[in-house]
């Protein structure tokens, strides 16, 4: 009764509608304000989440770029760099282990000075010396004669002369490794291209260094006449759309290369056997296949089959593999000394049981040879790493899967196929360098400073 009386009293007062309206206004305003704040908060949280994730991607981009640079032997830090909608900076510290680096990358959105979001990653990587990415590398002048097929990249520190009907293509489908680079700094020319030169896959480069203080002259191969002397004659390139020519290149592609890619001192030190004329008969499995030819000063392998047994042999004199030999196991032959016509001579019909290939690494790292360090004659099938410290000649019908490196002048004669392969027999001690693989040891996010 009392409550009903009070309500009646209130509602009968003048101006009560205004008060009620104001009361409603305040209530609704509060609800609206709360709603707006809620929507703003949700939007901000969502936007911040996206920005924060973007900052993480930017930090990751910094790590990925540094990993690519480590593969080029660049161990310096990366200063603040604009990337996408933000910036990153990467610090590099050697350690904690040998060949390991600790990378710390911070990503900022939109910038370091006015960041709205930032994330930081710490990644420890190990640089692994690895198989080089080129099929052929020359420390000196190289002549590639007619009818040669190279499956993989060619690198040189000197002139490259390419004969007629030469083809360069990728080592396996999709790999796109069919380019030619030289660090040679003269234009006489640095790369001479013979008639009917085929570049069989798109996206390839032919680059020469010449004068790196000038702007690189990048262009498609010329048709009609070639006015530039460094890479000449570009009109001989058949598939012109597959190639970009760069003269006066200043990229790392034309940095001088290190030949050999293998640490030969370590390899010699790790040899299972040091073979000398006085001890070779005591080496397991060596005789009667091998004999010492005191007239020519070479060890001679004269057997239809021989298994190197996965061992490293350090020969102190030259070696000759006579005709018709099939290798039934893999091995590494190093010639570290001697004096004869050839360091390593492979005559005819040398092959193996691995899809017809002999899995051999052949290296001439020392000695004094009247003709060539390495001479490969006819019908030879080898999968492995081949290195001659100075001159080498490869004759006709030779098929090599792996890597061929020559320290000085070399001639690749007719009907040769050289195909790059990562599958090199045995575990060779590759030098640290541009092609080392990267192994991720740890990858974690840390609090930014």
């Amino acid at each position: 009764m009392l409550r009903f009386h009070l309500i009646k009293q209130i509602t009968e007062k003048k101006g009560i509608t205004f008060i009620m309206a104001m009361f409603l206004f305040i209530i609704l305003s509060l609800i609206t304000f709360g709603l707006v704040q809620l929507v703003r908060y949700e939007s901000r949280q969502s936007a911040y989440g996206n920005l924060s994730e973007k900052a993480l991607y930017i930090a990751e981009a910094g790590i990925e770029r540094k990993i690519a640079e480590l593969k080029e032997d660049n161990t310096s830090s990366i200063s603040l760099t604009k990337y996408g909608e933000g910036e990153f900076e990467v610090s590099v510290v050697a350690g904690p282990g040998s060949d390991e680096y600790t990378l710390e990358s911070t990503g900022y959105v939109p910038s370091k000075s006015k960041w709205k979001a930032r994330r930081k990653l710490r990644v420890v990587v190990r640089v692994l010396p690895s198989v080089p990415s080129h099929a052929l590398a020359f420390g000196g002048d190289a002549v590639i004669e007619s009818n040669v097929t190279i499956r993989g990249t060619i690198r040189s520190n000197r002139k490259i002369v390419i004969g007629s009907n030469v083809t360069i293509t990728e080592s396996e489908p999709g790999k796109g490794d069919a380019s030619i680079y030289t660090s040679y700094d003269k234009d006489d020319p640095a790369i001479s291209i013979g008639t009917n030169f085929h570049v069989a896959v798109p996206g390839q480069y032919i680059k020469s260094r010449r004068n790196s203080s000038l702007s690189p002259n990048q262009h498609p191969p010329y048709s009609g006449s070639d006015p530039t002397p460094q890479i000449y004659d570009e009109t001989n390139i058949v598939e012109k759309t597959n190639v970009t020519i760069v003269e006066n290149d200043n990229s790392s592609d034309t940095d001088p290369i290190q030949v050999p890619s293998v640490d030969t001192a370590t390899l010699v030190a790790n040899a299972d056997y040091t073979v000398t004329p006085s001890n070779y008969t005591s080496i397991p499995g060596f005789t009667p296949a091998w004999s010492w030819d005191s007239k020519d000063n070479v060890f001679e392998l004269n057997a239809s089959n021989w298994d190197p047994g996965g061992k490293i042999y350090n020969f102190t004199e030259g070696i000759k593999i006579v005709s018709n030999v099939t290798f039934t196991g893999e091995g590494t032959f190093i010639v570290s000394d001697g004096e004869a016509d050839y360091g390593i001579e492979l005559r005819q019909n040398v092959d193996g049981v691995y899809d017809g290939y002999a899995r051999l690494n052949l290296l001439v790292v020392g000695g004094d040879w009247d003709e060539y360090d390495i001479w490969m004659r006819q019908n030879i099938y080898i999968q492995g790493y081949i290195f001659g410290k100075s001159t080498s000649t490869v004759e006709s019908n030779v098929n090599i899967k792996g890597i061929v490196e020559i320290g000085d002048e070399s001639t690749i004669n007719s009907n040769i196929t050289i195909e790059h392969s990562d599958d090199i027999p045995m575990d060779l001690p590759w030098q640290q360098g541009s092609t080392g693989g990267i192994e991720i040891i740890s990858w974690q996010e840390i609090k930014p400073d």
Partner: protein
Amino acid sequence: MGISYIELLLGIAILSFILLVFVQVLFYSMLSVKGSQFRSLAYNWATDRLEYLKSLSYDDPVLTPLYPVWSDDGEKELVEGILFKRKLRVSEITQGLLKNIEVKVEWTERKEDRNVTVSSYKANY
């Protein structure tokens, strides 16, 4: 005595004004929330693709550089009547070593073209 006509009219006017503002705020809040949802959806769709692309091998044909062309990856998604289209662009920064991967999701919302782009480098390990 009681509520006068003036008070009634004034009350209705104030209430109408309050309701109008309230409805407008609600409407724009809903649009804002919806826009934010679309943006998040596009962003998540783009990052999903970026993660997938980063997981591929460096030489995978999907990562063939075609810069500056944005290639349509064939993926489309219709959400609440809005068509989202996803595009990909790959460029090689250092030959054989470093690629830049960008994923863009485009859509049209209230007659305005919108997009989100996410990107990252991929090194050849």
